[in-house]
């Protein structure tokens, strides 16, 4: 359908208003932001300042990045509910009588997701550094946080896919499966080192594993590839998901 291809110029003001509109609703996200912080407080203080043998980073730093990745992922995925809700109200129908293209819509949602993810990452890192005295070079904190922040793009796209195309009654269970699967199998809740081997293999296929990985690499974990390898994997995920969204969007438009 032409709505995707005839993208035209990007409505910057629309994207800005859409993002600030969602941020004003930040109260609804408090729980999303609180959970990683609580988990950080529990797990982070349990292992304290020992060094993790795999990454050669302080355990507290590893846990912080894990929780920052988890919180960012959760914040991005929650766009799914925003979209399902907007669809049920009929807001999307109203938007379709504007020049806003499928691309414009997608970009506005990805940016809103990234805004929430940034809030979650900053809160988690601040609690770790200020409240728990996790020690890491500020530049490395920045690299890790920035890596995770950019890495939420595929999760924002997953949220759009669920929100835009799942039947409303099906969106909730689908969201739970995706979110739990990503968190557990990607090693965001419990380190993969304590999990069975097969789960480690599965983890390497999931973007959540690489989201955690890009944070660890940014923080200077041992490993030859640095941030490039996880960044490439996440970029591939983003491209594939964007392609699926565009394809579904056209098919939906043609069927209606």
């Amino acid at each position, binding site marked *: 359908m032409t709505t995707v291809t005839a993208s035209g110029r990007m409505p910057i003001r629309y994207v800005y208003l859409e993002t600030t509109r969602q941020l004003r609703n930040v109260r609804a996200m408090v729980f999303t932001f609180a959970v990683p912080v609580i988990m950080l407080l529990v797990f982070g203080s349990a292992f304290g300042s020992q060094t993790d043998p795999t990454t050669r980073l302080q355990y507290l730093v590893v846990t912080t990045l894990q929780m920052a990745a988890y919180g960012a992922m959760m914040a991005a995925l929650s766009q799914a509910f925003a979209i399902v809700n907007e669809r049920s109200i009929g807001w999307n129908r109203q938007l379709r009588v*504007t020049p806003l293209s499928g691309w414009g819509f997608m970009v506005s949602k990805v940016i809103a997701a990234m805004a929430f993810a940034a809030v979650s990452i900053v809160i988690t890192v601040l609690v770790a550094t200020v409240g728990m005295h996790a020690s890491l070079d500020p530049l490395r904190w920045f690299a890790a946080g920035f890596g995770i922040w950019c890495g939420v793009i595929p999760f924002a796209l997953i949220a759009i896919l669920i929100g835009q195309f799942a039947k409303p009654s099906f969106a909730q269970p689908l969201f739970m499966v995706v979110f739990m699967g990503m968190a557990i199998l990607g090693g965001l809740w419990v380190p993969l080192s304590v999990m069975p081997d097969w789960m480690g293999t599965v983890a390497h296929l999931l973007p959540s594993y690489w989201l955690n990985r890009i944070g660890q690499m940014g923080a200077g974990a041992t490993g030859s590839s640095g941030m490039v390898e996880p960044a490439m994997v996440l970029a591939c995920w983003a491209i594939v998901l964007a392609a699926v969204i565009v394809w579904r969007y056209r098919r939906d438009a043609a069927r209606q």
Partner: protein
Amino acid sequence: MNDTPVIQLRDLRKRFGEVAAVDGVDLTIRPGEVVALLGPNGAGKTTTVDLALGLSVPTSGGALLFGEEPRAAVVTGRVGAMLQGGALLPDMTVRDAVALVAAAHRRPMSVDEALRRARCTEIAGRRVNKLSGGQLQRARFAVAVVSDPDLLVLDEPTAAMDVEARHTFWSSMREFTDAGRTVVFATHYLDEADTFADRIVIMRAGRIVADGTPAQIKAITATRAVRFSGVGAAAHVALRGLPGVRSLEARHDSVTLRSDRSDDTLRALLTSFPQAHDIQVVASTMDDAFLALTADPVTTDTAPEGIPA
């Protein structure tokens, strides 16, 4: 003003599985017309509106807006719409909602101007979920006009409005059409179509069954019912032949003739069938007309043979 039709639908059809929601609609709407699309639920009004706006793809046939693809007209902001099931986000203020949609358009009017035109200035700061039914429709109208469109498409704009709200709504609409712009609105309300539109298009089962000025539509249907008893079924053929008779219905001993010249019908009836008694002559209302047109295609002006008794 140029002569390109604002809306042009050519043999438009849309099937959902076995159901033909729109079943061969041809319609041309010219600049400056105010057209009411009238019909019962399920007549295909909403589907026709969706097809005309390019929100759904026709099974066959085509729709043009301003001589181009509907989406192209939407992108240039020439079309504003209040759609069925197209609502505003509940947690925004009216002003923010209008501003957000304005930001999606290329050359919108100012938000204040849109609010003023839709009589929303006083409720601009109110949240959408705190609005009454009529206020919500006005807010949606503000959203529809913010692109400063040449064509407004309104799908049942006054649903959920009380009488006063409806009055306010139509007065703001008049301001819009006085500037020579085109309005197409779908409605259930005959009086609205009659008083506001300068053309009425009546749909039934996915087709257009009548199309004309309100006066013409009324003329089609301005029949009177001549009702009497005492004339047997054997005389029905002769009764149908009386002057002005458009249709005949019989129930037990009672016969109802629908006539567009009831005086002539009555004179002829009394001459030919003096045994007729309990005679009544009853005027049809616009509602009768609407029901007659939408209930059975045989009763339209093109098919005056009448309903088989």
